[in-house]
């Protein structure tokens, strides 16, 4: 049996799919450059960039000084000169020093130059909790990015999407904040690291499970939670539909609203904090567009409104199957007379 066949027989992880997405993009387009702290020799602390420096050289997969504003700021200049930087922020909360570059320059350079200077930068941010990380290693910062016009905000939940969406992000002429759910890095799928794989267009949600009685709207690390909840809910007589957003910006109103109109009930599930969080926007959008189809208020199941807790307590903070099922039960809503 050849090595390739042996590898094909083994299911791939999300981390491997992401790595292949960068490798394929770099092989096809010499302007694609990967950069960040530890992405070269080490292959990234999650090994997502493993082998890229060896294959493409340190000039195209560069270990930078440890400085996130510098990493993203120099990427802006590189993009100005026609390169396509893919930068890694290593951990969610480590990206905060780069916020000024992201908000003041990356997000608005196209706009302020009236289209003359696009920013084809992909900012890879491993995000979210559930891996027992200590403080500053588990934040869900998607709402900050969503609130900034000019950025695309993308987050895969499956191995296929990890490949397909990262390819699309790198190919995009606009900046993409690519949120990688780090607790799914080692999730596996029957996905060959060698076989042809599809590029997924950014901005389209998918229905992961069809159902008739309510819609769970979710993304990234909470998708497996919702799938499990949907299975469990069957015993209670709930036939749940699960929508995986995949892209928070642009937001796929069409797919989400079509689902809610079918089911008449909706719960938004994510682990970011609820107040001012992504679910607030999603619930408002759904209510504005589907009010007459709704049998109950759109509910949110989110992380508590607290700084991310220490790992020994994170299971109490992260929305789990039970919390989702509790919300589903509350959808049997009756208006107070």
């Amino acid at each position, binding site marked *: 049996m050849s090595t390739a066949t042996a590898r094909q027989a083994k299911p791939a992880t999300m981390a491997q799919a992401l790595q292949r997405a960068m490798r394929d993009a770099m092989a096809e387009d010499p302007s694609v450059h990967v950069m960040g702290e530890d992405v070269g020799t080490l292959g990234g602390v999650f090994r997502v960039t493993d082998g890229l420096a060896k294959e493409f050289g340190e000039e195209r997969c560069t270990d930078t000084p440890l400085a996130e504003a510098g990493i993203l700021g120099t990427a802006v200049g590189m993009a100005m000169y026609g390169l396509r930087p893919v930068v890694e922020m290593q951990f969610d909360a480590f990206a905060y020093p780069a916020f000024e570059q992201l908000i003041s*320059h990356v997000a608005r350079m196209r706009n302020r130059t009236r289209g003359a200077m696009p920013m084809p930068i992909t900012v890879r941010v491993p995000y979210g909790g559930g891996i027992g990380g200590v403080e500053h290693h588990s934040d869900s910062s998607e709402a900050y990015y969503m609130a900034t016009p000019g950025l695309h905000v993308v987050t895969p939940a499956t191995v296929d999407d990890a490949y397909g969406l990262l390819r699309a992000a790198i190919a995009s002429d606009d900046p993409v904040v690519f949120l990688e759910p780090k607790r799914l890095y080692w999730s596996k799928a029957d996905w060959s690291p060698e076989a042809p794989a599809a590029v997924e267009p950014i901005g389209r949600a998918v229905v992961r499970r069809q159902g008739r009685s309510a819609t769970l709207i979710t993304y990234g690390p909470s998708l497996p939670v919702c799938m499990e909840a949907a299975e469990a809910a069957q015993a209670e007589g709930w036939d749940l539909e699960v929508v995986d957003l995949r892209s928070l910006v642009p937001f796929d109103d069409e797919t989400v609203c079509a689902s809610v109109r079918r089911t008449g009930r909706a719960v938004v599930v994510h682990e970011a904090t609820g107040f001012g969080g992504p679910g607030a926007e999603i619930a408002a959008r759904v209510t504005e567009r589907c009010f007459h189809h709704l049998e109950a208020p759109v509910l949110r199941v989110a992380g508590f409104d607290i700084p991310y807790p220490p790992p020994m307590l994170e299971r109490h903070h992260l929305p789990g199957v039970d919390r989702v099922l509790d919300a589903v039960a509350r959808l049997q809503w009756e208006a107070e007379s």
Partner: protein
Amino acid sequence: MTVQERPGAAYRPTPPPAWKPRTDPAPLLPDPEPYRVLGTDAAAGADPQLLLRLYAELVRGRRYNAQATALTKQGRLAVYPSSTGQEACEVAAALALEERDWLFPSYRDTLAAVARGLDPVQALTLLRGDWHTGYDPREHRIAPLCTPLATQLPHAVGLAHAARLKGDDVVALAMVGDGGTSEGDFHEALNFAAVWQAPVVFLVQNNGFAISVPLAKQTAAPSLAHKAVGYGMPGRLVDGNDAAAVHEVLTEAVGRARRGGGPTLVEAVTYRIDAHTNADDATRYRGDSEVEAWREHDPIRLLEKELTGRGLLDEDTVKAAGDAAEAMAAKLRERMNADPVLDPMDLFAHVYAEQTGQLREQAAQLRAELDAESGEGTHGAEGDAR
């Protein structure tokens, strides 16, 4: 077993793993005295044609600053951060670059962009309150005027690095004020530039104040040029009002970068004669005597003395420079007095390469509002034609 059957070897500490600070390349420290050309022996070596060109540009630049400041009083510019007194830095920055090089200006460096050949009206677009950048940065190789402090410096490093990766001998010149050197991006940019040996030159215009805060409250460094040594790049200190000196130092640094010698930090010591912007009251934080002392050390006056002393400046040359500056100002006044026509639909045109569904909805809403307004005659066919 007895406690000690045989005498133990004498304790010898193991030597620490080898490490010592880099001492090569040799001295990176700037000369403590700012470099000067005008009025010194070095002036004899200066090219007369260059001095005359610098003179004409300085005169034009001074007039430009005056005209732009006047336009703020007429409400034609929303704000203008004048570079009066600093024209030597602005002009030398532009003239030290080749056409293929890039300039990364701060918000005060409009004049450098104009001296590089940018249309004065395009250069003022941001300050006018019209679209943020009035030109194609790639066409002119001038990055957008940068309002956040020092954030354009890492852009310059990245661009210079990318150019070198592509095999182009392009140099990036990044300009920043003394206040900007306190920002984190200043540090990160210099550090990246030195580690990557990027072909970039950092020009700090130390004009004494960051709005109202004097340099002594900004830094405890011996000079801003001294900061270079910590990054492993040479620092140069130059008299920022001596156009010939600034030009020489910058040309040298740009050439060194182009030859693969890596980055340089240049501190030009100058003074902001006008207030921070037209909205600032400089009398609250500095005295007249200080300003007067710097007026004596005026960049145009320094160059005039030199040129006159060498018999290079006659009345005709002075008049020609003055006339050219007046003509520029008159044309600028005339063009800036025309009301710009902006298309409100442009609000949505360049947020993304392809409009999102959300923005399409909002654009339709604005379109409807404009159509309703146009019934009242406030929005004509001009916007629709675009």
